[in-house]
């Protein structure tokens, strides 16, 4: 798939933007703080209804518009698929309430019909690579869980459904645990919530296991090539509750756990094991006032040549791991959706040496549409620039170069 047109009103630095894009690489040139990243952000926002850079949608509205009487932002894109086209629109409007506060109204439309955010899945798939993505490897586990959630949500509505139900049941159970600790009450109220956690939690866990297995397969090869054949990469899914193996997978760095047994286990056995664990933990969890078992505590680790990259990798090694991971994500999306997602790369070349740069640019030849940002056009060889649409970004205005 590719983006044919993009239209922005009062989004970040863009007061007004109308842009037509080709099904080929697009290179955005410009100094810092001119709006290159905001353009990628707009496309990612249209894809999933959530910004990769902020959780506060209010920040997306142009700063000057925020001071106007009726602040709003509007984003629109036309996406071309193999046999059809989709028109995606998102409108943000900041309303002032009678009590002086403000409320943000968000409306998402697909082909002129209002839809829920979760129903955006599959109409525009993107893979975004930002410089701060290195946090994925070095940062907190919640970032890695969000990575898995976002990726799976782009493809499987059933995953989104289970994730929502899981999170609601989890918040309820935690509130109930605290209430039981502080005021007492009937602990049997936990059981229906645990049942929801069991059913949806196993679903989440199985989806995650499947996607990590595929990502690990692609990323291993890509990492090997990106490092000029120097290092392989292992991606390990470490479910907090793993019904395939008994819990307590506390391994030491450098000591890899033995290969997973992939013997199929029937769902009822999984449910039962999970149910028992939750039940057995009740007393401890009431004391702590929180649920300690389940996919909300899953972990994902990146191991290269026996070394955990999150803890011991250099900045450069971590960047290579993330790049391999993003490219693996691209391959997986192609595989699952039978369509090429749109690839958004922000300042990645600057971080790579010449050999890796060439490898990456060659790879882009197979992607339907890649949109890249750079401050330095010289980093791209002549042969690449010839096939690429060059656009100059300055103070929220885009010109053909």
């Amino acid at each position: 798939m590719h983006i044919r047109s993009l239209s922005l009103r009062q989004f970040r630095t863009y007061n007004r933007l109308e842009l037509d894009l080709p099904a080929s690489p697009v290179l955005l040139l410009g100094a810092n703080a001119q709006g290159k990243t905001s353009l990628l952000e707009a496309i990612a926002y249209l894809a999933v209804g959530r910004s990769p850079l902020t959780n506060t949608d209010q920040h997306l509205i142009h700063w000057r518009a925020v001071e106007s009487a009726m602040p709003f932002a509007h984003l629109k894109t036309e996406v071309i698929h193999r046999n059809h086209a989709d028109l995606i629109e998102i409108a943000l409007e900041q309303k002032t309430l009678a009590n002086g506060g403000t409320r943000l109204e968000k409306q998402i439309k697909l082909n002129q019909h209002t839809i829920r955010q979760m129903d955006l899945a599959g109409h525009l798939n993107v893979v975004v690579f930002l410089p701060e993505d290195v946090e994925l490897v070095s940062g907190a586990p919640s970032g890695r869980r969000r990575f898995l959630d976002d990726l799976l949500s782009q493809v499987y509505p059933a995953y989104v459904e289970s994730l929502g139900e899981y999170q609601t049941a989890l918040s309820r159970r935690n509130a109930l645990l605290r209430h039981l600790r502080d005021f007492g009450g009937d602990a049997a109220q936990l059981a229906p919530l645990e049942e929801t956690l069991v059913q949806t939690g196993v679903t989440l866990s199985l989806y995650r296991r499947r996607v990590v297995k595929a990502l690990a397969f692609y990323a291993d090869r890509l990492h090997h090539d990106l490092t000029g054949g120097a290092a392989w990469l292992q991606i390990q899914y470490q479910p907090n509750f793993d019904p395939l193996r008994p819990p307590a997978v506390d391994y030491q760095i450098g000591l890899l756990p033995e290969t997973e047994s992939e013997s199929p286990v029937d769902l009822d056995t999984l449910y039962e094991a999970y149910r028992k664990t939750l039940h057995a933990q009740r007393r401890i969890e009431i004391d702590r006032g929180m649920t300690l078992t389940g996919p909300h505590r899953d972990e994902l680790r990146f191991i290269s040549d026996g070394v955990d990259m999150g803890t011991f990798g250099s900045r450069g090694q971590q960047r290579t791991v993330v790049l391999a991971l993003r490219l693996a994500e691209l391959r997986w999306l192609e595989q699952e959706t039978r369509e090429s997602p749109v690839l958004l790369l922000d300042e990645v070349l600057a971080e790579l040496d010449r050999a890796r740069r060439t490898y990456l640019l060659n790879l882009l030849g197979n992607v339907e549409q890649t949109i890249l940002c750079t401050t330095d056009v010289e980093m791209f060889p002549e042969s690449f620039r010839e096939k690429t649409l060059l656009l100059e970004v300055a103070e929220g205005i885009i010109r053909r170069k």
Partner: protein
Amino acid sequence: MYTAALPASVVELTETLSALPGIGPKTASRLAFFLLRGKSELALRLAEALKGLVERTRFCSICYNVTEADPCPICTNPARNQRMVCVVEEPLDLLALERTDQYHGVYHVLHGALSPMEGVFAEDLRINELEARIRRGDVEEVILATNPTSEGDYTAAYLLQRLKPLGVRITRLGRGLPMGGDLEYADAVTLMRALESRQEL
């Protein structure tokens, strides 16, 4: 607000009205001035009605519906099947079922649904009373008619688990597609539930 320009009694009424659900400060002052403008008869009737509401109504000691006579007319009606109890969240749900004119059993009003995040737990609902009522032994069937929301489903699941050991028949209201609806526009969850609760013909 511009309260200094208004008599205290008008301000008092406006502020009281705006405490009601769905009524903001603007609607509240509009209502207050409507009552003020020569409609003293209406204002007094309203005052009487409110007074009556507070003084004469109470909860039925059997089903916990709002009533003036205890037990309520439904619980004392010999034409109704006292062995069939329909459990609802709110008195308004009971009214909706009554409008069908098809249900001839009695009710039990919980006054809410389990919602731990909003601080509503089993002890805040009329669940102990329901259990005691069934233990007294004159109930054969309990129909769980909580709302088809996530809180309603949670409440029904909890009730099922709690009442099952008492040996009564427990049923749940059927769920599925609305009349006059269209399969094409039904959401996935509704369709899924409709499939799950399909019936043999």
